[in-house]
């Protein structure tokens, strides 16, 4: 598992607000490893993991979008049935809540990187360590 810096971008709920952000990130050479779009009828939030979070944030700010970096946790989950359920079981009966999670865009091997937003994150890391997942 690893601590990751996620970039979150505010999107107004209007057609054509997402594409320019993605295009600009591409123009700045930002490679996206994982992403997720949360949407409501009022607004959207684009969340993603990039190779260089600070450079990605700067690129988004160039467009004038509100954006911030938040701390998430990446966990390599074995690519087999029950792989994710085992991870989730670590948090059974704990005070940790999982606000959201999403998966990386492409995985090469026999495991997949999942991105977790925990609350509180420190307690989540303790529980993960106690369960034998080493921090990279």
């Amino acid at each position, binding site marked *: 598992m690893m601590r990751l810096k996620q970039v979150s971008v505010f999107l107004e709920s209007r057609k054509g607000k997402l594409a320019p952000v993605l295009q600009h990130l591409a123009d700045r050479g930002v490679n996206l490893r994982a992403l997720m779009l*949360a949407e*409501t009828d009022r607004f959207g*939030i684009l969340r993603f993991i990039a190779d260089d979070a600070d450079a990605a944030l700067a690129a988004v700010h160039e467009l004038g979008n509100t954006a911030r970096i938040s701390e998430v946790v990446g966990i390599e989950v074995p690519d087999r049935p029950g792989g994710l359920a085992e991870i989730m079981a670590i948090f059974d009966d704990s005070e940790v809540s999982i606000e959201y999670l999403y998966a990386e865009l492409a995985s090469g091997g026999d495991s997949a990187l999942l991105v977790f937003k925990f609350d509180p994150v420190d307690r989540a890391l303790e529980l993960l360590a106690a369960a034998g997942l080493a921090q990279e």
Partner: protein
Amino acid sequence: MWSEDVQQLPTDQLRELQLQRLQALVALVYDKVPFYRDRLDEAGLTPADVTNLDVLARLPLTSKYDMREVFPFGLFASPKSEIVEVHMSSGTTGKPVVGAYTRGDLDIWGEVMARTLDAGGATADDIVQVAYGYGLFTGGLGGHYGGTTLGAMTLPMSSGNTFRQLNTMMDFGTTALLCTPSYALFIAEYAREHDIDVAGGPLRVGFFGAEPWSEEMRADIEAKLGIKAYDIYGLTELIGPGVAAECSEQNGLHIFEDHFYPEIIDSETGEGLPAGQKGELVLTTLTRTGTPVLRYRTRDITYLIDEPCPCGRTSRRIHRLMGRNDDMLIIRGVNVFPQQVEEVLLRVEGVEPYYQIVVDRDGVMDTLEVEVEMAETLFSDEVKVILALERKIEHELRLALGIQAVVKLVNPKTIERSEGKAKRIVDRRTVTTGA
């Protein structure tokens, strides 16, 4: 005609009556209201100087801003023990303006609202449905007192619950409706959607005010509801509805001049303007004793019509309102100032004072959207945090404005700024007020 003697008083006698009442008014406020005494002293005037109506132009003007400075009791000209009712209107910011009524003031209110209904042909035989809001807003109770003074069966429905409005209207055979013009259209649309034949029913007349409307809207309401629609005018600072009303000619609103003295001034210079010239309406209460008002600047733009009217009333008329000279918005009949929105936003931690108010009309109902820039400090990666922020702002706006607003969060710097100052209002409603 209701109170025919006074409504048809020859002009010279009417002016004499007005002068007597103005003298009594100035004497009253000079004696009882330090707010006015100080201003009269500053102007170097005493009640003894009011020897003719021309002196009125030398008396100090009063603004909504002045009035809220002395909230809540600073304008009372009668002891609190003699006040029997209170209404309030929203101020531009902070405190509202208070209107306090003695028993005599309520009698005056009932009288001028009875004249309002009578001017549109209503009588004691009518069944009057009051669909203005009851409460601190003056529309509901003003209409109510008019109906009961006239002797009509009066249904205090208040606003909203359109299904019940229509059911009651059909069950009781309502013949006269009082509400905002936009609500009248809403009722018409609702009836059509639910196959309720209002136009074929007993409803025959409507008295609509509290917001700007147009001749086109009148034609629409008259056709859809099968009624005659009359424009009525008033404001909480003066008394509420009942300051002026159209007669059957539907050609300007007669001011009930034995109770309210009208002037038109140039907004910039304060100079009086003659009949026919457009300017700001200034009104003085001639008979009220709770909270009498000297030369109130209404901010409403119109002109005086000083010609005989075929109806026989000798009072002057004002043209249908032609706009305002401040940034007040009237949304669903409620007065809204941009500064109120700003105050709310500044109370919510982290919100930048960049906002835009977008007023539109969805069908016949006004909508209010407040666009707020999404500051980095407010932003979260979690949807629930942002939704909670929106709800909090909407709740605060609802408390401050008294009407529902939808908050829309937008990216920073997207709200148009002109000359370094944000453009606050986008009004997409297309009401032409005959200007």
